[in-house]
């Protein structure tokens, strides 16, 4: 007796977003990245469209970070003082796009300035043709000051600007609207808040196809189950037609995974944790892949070995299979 394959009919779809603009489109990027467009839960090709694979961004900084794991500095240490060189190396290591996070201070502890931020962005744009995202250091006033300058200086590049948060989204949204960029909307592991911030940003006049949803996720072992379920719920709502949850989802497993003890610390940890580097890479890979199964579209990572492994996962998952 033939078995009827249970297929779900969804009324909604994930919204497509285009990041980066080529010279014909008013930017200087050599390619653009398109994410979203799915009409099914992740990679269920048999019941809907999965037109674009999730993409991986490698995170770089405007100067040598003070608090990154030595394991990361082994890889990036030689270029960490030059954002242009770092960008280039990230591109060589398989990034689909780049995230530049701006530092709070310079190496001497003086607050970062718009001039320096713009300079770093320009270096990155010159050194690499990949689409770019730029996030502030995460302090409202400084974020606004830096991101506005960056936004103006890179008008037309279709950057993703962040971080928009509930208490601080207006300035960044306004400047992104004025200069044809996108924004990333970040909320703390909660479906209601995630949806609400999209509404607020959209209310300012930002088109929905230029709002990415960063639901924040937690790392493996540190709350990932909440992030995982929040993402599944948002994606289910999107497919059921809730327009405010249909934006592509952006996640930061690199930052999440590399800040936990399992990745940061090599000594004085239980023997059962095993080899430091192997464990740290697995931590980042596991955090990223688990979240890809729950709907991630843009995955921001830090270690090139992790990036290669997650790329392989995505490639395999993009093979369409008909169940029989």
């Amino acid at each position, binding site marked *: 007796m033939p078995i*009827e394959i249970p297929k779900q009919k969804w009324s909604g779809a994930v919204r497509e977003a285009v990041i980066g603009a080529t010279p014909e489109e008013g930017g200087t990027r050599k390619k653009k990245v398109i994410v979203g467009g799915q009409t099914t839960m992740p990679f269920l090709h048999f019941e809907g469209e999965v037109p674009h694979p999730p993409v991986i961004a490698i995170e770089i900084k405007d100067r040598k970070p003070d608090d990154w794991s030595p394991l990361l500095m082994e890889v990036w240490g030689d270029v960490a003082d030059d954002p242009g060189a770092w960008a280039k190396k990230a591109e060589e290591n398989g990034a689909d796009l780049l995230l530049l996070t701006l530092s709070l201070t310079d190496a001497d502890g003086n607050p970062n300035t718009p001039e320096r931020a713009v300079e770093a962005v320009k270096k990155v744009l010159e050194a690499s043709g990949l689409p770019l995202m730029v996030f502030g250091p995460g*302090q409202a006033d400084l974020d606004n000051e830096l991101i506005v300058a960056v936004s103006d200086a890179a008008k037309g590049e279709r950057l993703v600007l962040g971080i928009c948060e509930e208490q601080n989204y207006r300035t960044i949204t306004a400047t992104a609207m004025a200069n044809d960029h996108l924004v990333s909307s970040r909320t*703390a592991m909660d479906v209601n*808040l995630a949806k609400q911030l999209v509404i607020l940003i959209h209310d300012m006049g930002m088109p929905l196809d230029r709002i990415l949803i960063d639901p924040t996720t937690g790392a*493996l072992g540190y709350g990932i189950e909440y992030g995982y379920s929040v993402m599944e719920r948002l994606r289910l709502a999107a497919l059921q037609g809730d327009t405010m949850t249909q934006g592509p989802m952006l996640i930061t497993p690199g930052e999440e995974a590399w800040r936990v003890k*399992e990745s940061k610390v090599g000594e004085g940890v239980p023997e059962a944790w095993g*080899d430091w580097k192997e464990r740290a890479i697995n931590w980042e890979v596991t955090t990223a892949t688990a979240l890809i199964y729950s709907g991630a579209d843009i995955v921001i990572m830090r270690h090139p070995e992790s990036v290669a492994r997650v790329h392989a996962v995505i490639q*395999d998952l993009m*093979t369409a299979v008909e*169940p029989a």
Partner: protein
Amino acid sequence: MALTGIQIYKLLPKTNCKECGFPTCLAFAMKLAAKQAELSACPYVSEEAKAKLEAASAPPIRLVTVSADGHEAKAGNEVVLYRHEKTFYNKPGLFLRVYDDMSADEIQAKAKPASEYVVEYVGIELDMAGTAIQARGGDFVAAVEAVRAVSDKPLILIADPDALDAALAKLQEIGIENDRPLICAADADNWQAMAELGKKYNVPVTVKADTLEGLADLTEKLKEAGLQDIVLDPGVRNLSDSLTMYTVLRRLAIKSLYRPLGFPIIAFPGDAEDEDKEYALATMAIAKYAGFVVLDRFTPARAYPLLVLRENIYTDPQKPIQVLPGLYEFHNPGPEDPVFVTTNFSITYFSVANEIDGSGMPAWLLIADAEGMSVLTAWAAGKFDADRIAKAVREFKVEEKVSRKRIVLPGLVAVLSGELEEELPGWEVKVGPREAVDLPSYMKNVLAAE
């Protein structure tokens, strides 16, 4: 989907005659829903209701247990596709595979460390479920003996029926209590012999076929032969086909209530050609519905994250992980520094701790015992009120640590400030931001400015 108490009640006579031994039809319905009563206890159920209830009462995915000594690996009894809909119940066991063409020494050198491996995560001990042994042209019985000499954990045996027969007899001879391995695999050719073994030794049997119909056909045959404990191997070995088939199997079982495929799944990441792909397949198997997972490569640095992922995915969304109540320190706080308070729900703790830590400013963080609930839920449930907070202040001797008595409440429970002032005379009660992400700016702009 399983029926709720009220849905079952609607099918009962609603007379509360008590003959079933329960005071009301609803009380009986609740027991039926919890599978703690038999429908036959009510003499008055209509035939139609009986048919409906029986169809709904069998678990959509049969529970299959593989055991040995005091160890058990259980799979099945799942009721949802997404964990937030209820929870995932039975964590898939991870089995490390050895082959019978390896020497006894090699087998033991591989199986023993994995079998003995234990790692602690938030106070829980995590371990591997057991060992899988596969025939590959060597001495299967000897391989089984070699494993049993170093491990009394559950086994998965993969061989042809004759070798399995001999191995199962050997296991009986060794005589470990409850030694009930899973045997692999019945296919279109050997299913009769496999069914015989399943019955003879009372062990669960894996069926393997490349199509859903092939699988369903085999399970029906095994059921006819009198076997109940069946495990499915849909023969998929890549990520894309695994995700597709596991999802379809889960949906058929749970949404379509398709009985012939209502069994747990076994996954073989170990068949992957390289270690990275094996790891990726294992991640997928854990997140997406496998019940047993067979691996070929073991290191602590691989096992630990996989076991933690399994723990996270299978955490009951309603029974969150807790952290220990107490007074936590950030950046060597002194007697002048502020005291933040929040609940012992792990995510609440992680997010608050992260932000305070990230602020770079010294502070105390008091974690009150709110039975693992988030701030809002705990407050609604009366588990995070002025009384409990004051209790925590006393219990963890906060007054001995600070001279400037400032306590900062989460913004979500601003309403508690009045009561807390009453409970904590001499304290300045402040209301912090509603979201943890706003703590650093609050610390900088409000607290530090005072």
